[in-house]
């Protein structure tokens, strides 16, 4: 008897999601490797519904006996829960349309030695090229995930993904002062991590970070790098495109479908199969077929993202955006790979006409933004001062505003895009904004 059949003795509907992850990671602290680690972990989430009552159980195992016990415990949880009259059902059989996705099986058995060598060389390069630089932290490693979603309505989809990553976090010390930490990274679906890019990109910024420049301006033109932009959007714009918030009327986009919301230069979509995607899923965490969803097209809001539950309630159906929280087993609405289309100019061209402006590499405190309103008040750090098109030093300043006002008035977008994996997956360009209100923090 398979596990779904077993579970049907307890539930009207049942979903079993198995996640099996194999990871190797090598970490750096203070210019040296500090630790190498490996982990093999299986987690199974049982989500069952009886008389419209939901029960979930999570167990650190893929053992059949443990899963059977988990099904019984999930049934007890369902009995303790209350009826959800809005519940319509788990998703039914799907037609999967994902393109052929090449999987690199080398990643599955990646050796720690490979990453130790890579990091050793990277540390050596950093130290050789800047003797004041300290590799304060960093890591490199591999992650292999096998995920199988089955339910009692005929979904049974198995997916496997492999990725490798590398990042370094470097600070410079000159006398008693310490530069802001400069971070850069590479993430790939093969083993070809670009160590030289990571090192060069960091050192290029670090050389300006030694020179702290105070700004007394209250308004400035700003270029946001992809990572900074992603941090901000993750906590302000992304929550607003959740269909759940549409139903509850707690998003500023509630009545904006079909309207111009952002600058017409902006086109944003969720595309798990973008050539630069590091998250090429076939199906979401409920087994619903993944797809490309246009969210904003030339500034016009196309529509919300839905999981199965809220998609059923709204009548729009799931857009394949159900994502599972492995701590709670619950499904929420998430983006798989946020793509912002690039513009025409190079990133250098965005800065070249700037007489006196700023380049922001990262934000502090983006997570304290207000997802319900899009308001943010963050610290630009690391950030750099630009004079006559050239970076002249590092600076720290506060930037407060609202994401809709910010993205409603974009001066330009770079043609280059970067893969982003921090705070979610994305493919993001640089953006130029004019006349933003700022408050200097650097002394």
């Amino acid at each position, binding site marked *: 008897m398979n596990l779904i059949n077993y579970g049907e003795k307890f539930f009207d509907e049942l979903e079993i999601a198995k996640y099996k992850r194999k990871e190797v990671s090598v970490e750096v602290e203070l210019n040296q490797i*500090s630790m190498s*680690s490996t982990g093999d972990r299986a987690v199974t989430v049982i989500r069952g519904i009886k008389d419209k009552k*939901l029960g979930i159980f999570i167990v*650190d195992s893929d053992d059949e006996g443990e899963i059977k016990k988990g099904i019984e415990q999930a049934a007890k949880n369902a009995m303790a829960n209350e009826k959800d009259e809005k519940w319509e059902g788990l998703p039914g059989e799907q037609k999967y349309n994902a393109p052929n996705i090449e999987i690199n099986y080398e990643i599955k058995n990646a050796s*720690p030695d490979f990453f130790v060598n890579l990091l050793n060389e990277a540390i050596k390069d950093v130290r050789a090229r800047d003797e004041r630089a300290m590799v304060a932290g960093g890591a490199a490693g591999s992650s292999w995930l096998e995920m199988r979603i089955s339910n009692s309505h005929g979904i049974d989809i198995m997916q496997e993904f492999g990725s490798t990553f590398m990042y370094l976090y470097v600070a410079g010390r000159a006398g008693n002062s310490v530069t802001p*930490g400069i971070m850069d990274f590479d993430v790939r679906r093969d083993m070809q991590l670009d160590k030289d890019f990571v090192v060069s990109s960091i050192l290029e910024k670090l050389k300006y970070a030694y020179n702290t420049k105070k700004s007394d301006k209250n308004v400035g033109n700003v270029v946001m790098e992809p990572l900074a932009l992603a941090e901000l959007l993750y906590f302000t714009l992304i929550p607003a495109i959740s269909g759940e918030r549409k139903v509850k009327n*707690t998003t500023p986009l509630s009545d904006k479908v079909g309207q111009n919301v952002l600058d017409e230069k902006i086109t944003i979509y969720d595309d798990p199969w973008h050539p630069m995607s590091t998250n090429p899923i076939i199906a979401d965490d409920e087994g619903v077929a993944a797809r490309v969803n246009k969210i904003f097209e030339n500034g016009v809001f196309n529509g919300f993202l839905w999981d199965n539950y809220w998609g059923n309630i709204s009548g729009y159906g799931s857009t394949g955006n159900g994502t599972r929280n492995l701590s709670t087993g*619950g499904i929420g609405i998430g983006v798989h790979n946020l793509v912002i289309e690039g513009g025409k100019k190079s990133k250098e061209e965005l800065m070249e006409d700037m007489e006196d402006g700023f380049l922001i590499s990262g934000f502090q405190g983006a997570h304290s933004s207000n997802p319900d309103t899009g308001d943010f*008040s*963050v610290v630009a750090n690391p950030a750099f001062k630009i004079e006559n098109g050239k970076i002249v030093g590092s600076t720290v300043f506060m930037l407060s505003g609202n994401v809709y006002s910010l993205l409603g008035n974009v001066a330009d977008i770079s043609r280059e895009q970067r893969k982003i994996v921090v705070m979610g997956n994305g493919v993001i360009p640089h953006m130029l904004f004019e006349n933003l209100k700022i408050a200097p923090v650097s002394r």
Partner: protein
Amino acid sequence: MELDGIIDWANKNIKAEYVEIRGEELSKLNIELKDGTFSTFTSLKSSGFGIRVLAEGAWGFSSTTKIEELKDAIEKAYKMAKAASRGRYEKIKLADIKIVEDEVKSKMKIKPEEVDVQEKVKRMKELEKELKKDKNVKSTRITYQDTSGTKVLYTSERTKIVWDMGYVWQYIWATGKNERGMAAARDEIGSVDMGWELFQEENTNKVSKRVLKKLNAQLNGVSPKRGEYPVVAGPIIVGIIAHEALGHLAEADLTINSPFRDLIGKQIAPEFVNMSDRIVENGFGNNVYDDEGTKIKDVHIIKNGILTEIMLNREYAARWGMEPNGHARAENYTVPPIIRMRNTVFERGDHSFEELVEGIKFGYYLVDFRGGQAELNSSFQVGVQEGYIIRNGELAESIKDTSISGIAIDALKQISAVGKDFGIEMGRCGKGQTAFVSSGGPHMRFDKGIVVGGQQ
């Protein structure tokens, strides 16, 4: 006990300087009530072992969920350590600690597993009902979580500690709307020392009043003026400044790269300023031993204005030539322990609240926060979710969402007065892993050094 035999085997067969087995067997309950629906109703069984091996001067780590695979996991961690050792020119050493065999008992009076799940459900529904009595509240999310079980630490040095461990935790996010716009408020409480009795103290009426006060202050608030103004910070804001702006720099693994490295033993604040990471009553970071088996000691980070002590694990204590003080913490068995804060607080002074606001022509009184973050260059940011304007020494209108920032080592020097009251709040810190922490202190006044962000 089976683990004794495995440690014997490791001591005999693994050529390592140190082997550590950290095991957990925990049951968790997680319930989320979103606008009338229990959208997650989850129990969780988590059990496994985290293995850390120090060999050839480097760390290796592995984890397994099966006790029968423990020896394999130790061998894997050993191989990992050997691989890592090729990237070290300086061998890791561990400072000595007193080796203990102990059993740590829970202080909870009413363990969460003794409370019927229906009572937990009932409380959440009551809380939601009380929140939604306010017509401005449009959406609420209430999360309740409890955990109970056993944690063990066995090491090749014969440390043997068994913890009867658990916690309770509640998180609220409320979204409100009025004619002026939308706003949101966060509230978080939890305890490792108090069980269900925490919720008798933090009853639904008290919690809902607190959430609604924060929410309505923002809904009716004005946009603050951006810039540097005098600030009186309440215990929760003082706590997050202690944690984000200073605490992280005093974590030895970060100190070494921060401006604090060269400031130990030097005056960094006025002499009436004292800050510690210590055991406090009902602190969310309380424990008896850390995850390396070191007995936890109070750390006097700033004493009479002088940067005095930092938070250490065994590795960094050896590196700094200091004594370990019990700050190695791991989120769970799947990750190794790292240096973390516990309860980071400014100590009491002798001023009344009235004295602190006296003489401020225009400034801000900041009460509660939503998130914060620090950087190695001591720049910090704290999101503010409850604050008020101070005008001519009096509290005036509330302010909307904003945040504050500064350079910590500059802001410290601008503390001009410390209150005689004291308060803490319970929260979580993310430094790659999540740790339960508390932070707090008395009301404090900063004459300068804190920049208020604002759209005005």
